């Protein structure tokens, strides 16, 4: 009969198949005697796939939304260190907590900061005047970079993450649309089947009379 593929049309830029909207159910099923079980099952499979993709993308989006502010903060910090090195001026506190603020004009004075030892525990430290910073890249990997390299690395990471986030959000919207189209298709095929059964039953009764 008509075991047409559900996905035979275009895909969106990232390979998510587009769901075809079935305008004419009868034609799709191949005439008034078309089987509905197979198409219905295919639709259900497609809906399950869409839902799975939706869950994946939502997770990915959440991860990105968490990472991006972190990268921004780190980039901001590196830029700040760069500035300080270039200007050798006394700037604001690095941390919001109690850090020593001595407003001397001595350009060689190193920065003091309070840093986090533990969730509720902080200690004071002096930062050396160096142009090397260490970036934690995850997976037990930490590399040292010159300030400028660190800044450009962070900038590119940030851009990548933001682009990825944008793409993921687009994909999510696209998925929602396709999911709705699929559910509408399922409903229409099912209703058409119900109607057909009713007509057959009425025709059968009329014949018996």
């Amino acid at each position, binding site marked *: 009969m008509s075991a047409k593929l559900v996905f035979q049309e275009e895909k969106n830029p990232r390979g998510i198949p587009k769901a075809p909207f079935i305008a004419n159910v009868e034609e799709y099923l191949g005439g008034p005697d078309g089987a509905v079980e197979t198409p219905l099952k295919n639709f259900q499979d497609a809906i399950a796939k869409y839902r799975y993709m939706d869950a994946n993308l939502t997770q990915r989006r959440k991860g990105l939304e968490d990472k991006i502010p972190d990268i921004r903060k780190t980039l901001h*910090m590196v830029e700040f260190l760069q500035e300080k090195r270039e200007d050798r001026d006394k700037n604001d506190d690095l941390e919001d907590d109690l850090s020593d603020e001595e407003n001397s004009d001595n350009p060689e004075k190193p920065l003091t900061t309070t840093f986090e030892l533990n969730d*509720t525990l*902080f*200690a*004071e430290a002096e930062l*050396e005047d160096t142009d090397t910073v260490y970036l934690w*890249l995850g997976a037990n990997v930490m590399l040292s970079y010159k300030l400028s390299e660190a800044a450009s690395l962070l900038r590119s990471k940030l851009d990548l993450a933001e682009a990825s986030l944008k793409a993921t959000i687009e994909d999510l919207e696209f998925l929602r649309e396709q999911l709705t189209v699929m559910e509408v298709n399922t409903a229409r095929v099912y209703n058409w089947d119900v109607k057909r059964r009713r007509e057959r039953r009425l025709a059968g009764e009329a014949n018996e009379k």
Partner: protein
Amino acid sequence: MASTTSSQPQQINVADLDLQQLSDVRRQLEEELNHLTNSFAQLKQAQAKFKSCIENVREIKPQNKGTTILVPLTNSLYVPGHLSDAENVIVDVGTGYYVKKSRAQATKYYETKVEYIRTNLDTLQETIQKKQENMSYLVNVMQAKLQQSQTQPTKV
């Protein structure tokens, strides 16, 4: 459900309850038990955190000021530096207050916290145990009832 004259969670005349009510009570007890066990785990976590804080304070002590450390500026940015103040640490005491304490004071503070949690844990442990006993008693009664109803299907 049939209430009792005692204020204990255990029903004294539990034998009067039918199976349905018994299973309801059992479900309720299970929920409470779950909740208490979760709280217990959370308290244990908090206690472990405070214990590690004590460790951290201890770390600051033996180090002399000149040792180079990597100072975290954000959670992925570290800058080399050294301790400027090896005698005081800053402790978050809650509601947005941060107090600069000496090492000894900070250690004492955390140890008090750990002790407080320990007493809470003990109390919680007792409560959990009592609930578990209630549960097993209830299950016994349920089984007895089940057997009873099976051997006397026409019991009125």
